[in-house]
């Protein structure tokens, strides 16, 4: 498939901090790609570099075959970007905000107006069109920012935590729209919501300290855990140190952790779990839960010293 976004060995430092180091990845046309990572991992920096809010120090980046360094204007006209922070113009009404940004992306006044009204109806904020942004709630402002990113019908949609601060209804609306758009557009978003990443992304990249630790489809990422399972045991009282010592002595029990009255650990071998269960039954075990490793576990493992 044709690449829509290409990042080749990108490096970026800011005030002596390395934000990105030798970062490379590609996003196929018509696919949804998500960047996940802890705070400060460099997710927003990647998105800002793509829309030209930041400039790279090293490497090459392309959107639809156009170099972001030399053809930034063309790239920005086909790109819709929603930042993490509110940056609506507080001296213009909601409608004026949308129309102006549509026109700045090359739409005629009529097109910009009709697209703005259309998006307000689709996202159900048409009653707020004549209001000033400061009169609206945080969630409503985020919806308007989402509409503003799409008002010029961009080929590439770049979203920084698109559902942050949205209520469940609005979140569903946003994802329904992105689901409809994703067959014709390239969507790149950054999030810390793993459920959304698992549900909506075709490919996922885990960013850590400015570089990609792992990327691929969800299935491929899960495969890399080789059947690793998370186990959780609940006790009536916080487990004693003696129990933890015995648990740690079991072979192939990974990352045992006490969380209040619960103990969590990972293992690939069910037999080992049965052995632990047998031990736990001697310590007022109340409940237990097992789950196949998901993105959240993989992320914790990769960014916090590994699961092994």
């Amino acid at each position: 498939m044709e690449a829509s976004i290409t990042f080749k060995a990108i490096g970026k430092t800011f005030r002596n901090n390395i934000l990105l180091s030798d970062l490379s990845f590609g996003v196929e046309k018509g696919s949804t790609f998500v960047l996940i990572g802890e705070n400060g991992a460099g997710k927003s920096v990647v998105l800002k570099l793509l829309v030209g809010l930041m400039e790279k120090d090293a490497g090459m980046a392309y959107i639809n075959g156009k170099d972001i360094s030399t053809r930034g204007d063309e790239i920005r006209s086909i790109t819709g970007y929603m930042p993490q922070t509110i940056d609506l113009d507080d001296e213009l009404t909601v409608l004026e905000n949308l129309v102006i940004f549509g026109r700045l992306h090359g739409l005629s006044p009529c097109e910009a107006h009709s697209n703005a009204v259309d998006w307000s109806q689709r996202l159900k904020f048409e009653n707020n069109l004549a209001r000033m942004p400061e009169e609206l709630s945080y969630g409503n402002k985020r919806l308007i920012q989402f509409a503003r990113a799409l008002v010029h019908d961009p080929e590439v949609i770049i979203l920084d935590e698109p559902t942050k601060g949205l209520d469940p209804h609005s979140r569903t609306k946003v994802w329904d729209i992105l689901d409809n758009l994703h067959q014709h557009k390239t969507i790149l978003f950054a999030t810390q919501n793993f459920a959304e990443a698992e549900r909506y992304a075709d490919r996922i990249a885990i960013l850590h300290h400015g570089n990609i630790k792992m990327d691929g489809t969800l299935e491929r990422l899960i495969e890399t855990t080789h059947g690793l399972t998370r186990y959780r045991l609940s006790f009536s009282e916080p487990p004693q140190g003696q129990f933890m010592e015995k648990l740690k002595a079991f072979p192939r029990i990974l990352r045992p952790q006490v969380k209040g009255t619960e103990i969590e650990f990972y293992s690939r071998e069910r037999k080992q779990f049965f052995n632990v269960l047998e031990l736990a039954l001697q310590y007022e075990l109340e409940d237990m839960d097992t789950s196949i490793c998901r993105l959240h576990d993989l992320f914790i493992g990769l960014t916090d010293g590994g699961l092994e």
Partner: protein
Amino acid sequence: MLKVLLYRDWLKYKKNSISLLIIFTMLPMLLHLFLSIPLSSIVELDMRYINWAAPGIWVTSSGLLAFCVSVLRMKKIKHDSGQLDALLKTPLRNGEIVFSVIIIGTILGMIQALISIPLTVMLNNEYLSIVQFFFILLQLIPLISFYAILGTLLGIFIKDGIALVSVILLIFLILALSIGSFLPLENFPIEYVDVVNMIPLSLIINSCQMIIQNESILYSGFFLTILFNIFLLLITVALSYKTFRK
């Protein structure tokens, strides 16, 4: 794109048209009341002082307004509202953002001059022909643009409110009291006068004073200010490329 940015500013200023109109009329009237009238009883000239000081009112009011509009607009875009990032993610070029701020500052400064001139003429009971009016406006264009460009340039760097107030106060003092607008340069030490006479802005004020006295007009200040404006504009645009995108 520049047209859209100017339309955006038009939408904003349209909402504040009443307060702008109050500023446009109050600023020259207050300068007349608190500077021209009191100084008229102190400063002795061959001609009537309040007539001589009229160009000072035009220059100070329009220059100050152009400076304030540009510095406040650029400060807001760059530092206060996240507007710069919002604009930079559109196909706009940095230069277009800078130009829009300068153009708006210059236009509002010109409107201020258009209101200040007839208002002062009325208050002073003097007569100004259409031709004189036209030549005065012509002379003021580069001066107003200079303050609009200077405001835009400083707005890129000024983050702090106190620094902004200090700079505006400084600009007012320079405009009103140091380049021969309200205080005749004869009252200053000769060394200072020699320096001020080399400043193109001072030549423009001098030229406006000559127009109302029906004397021949000096164009050296006009052209030198235009040249200096081009130089300052290039610096401002270059700095915008250096500072807007991190």
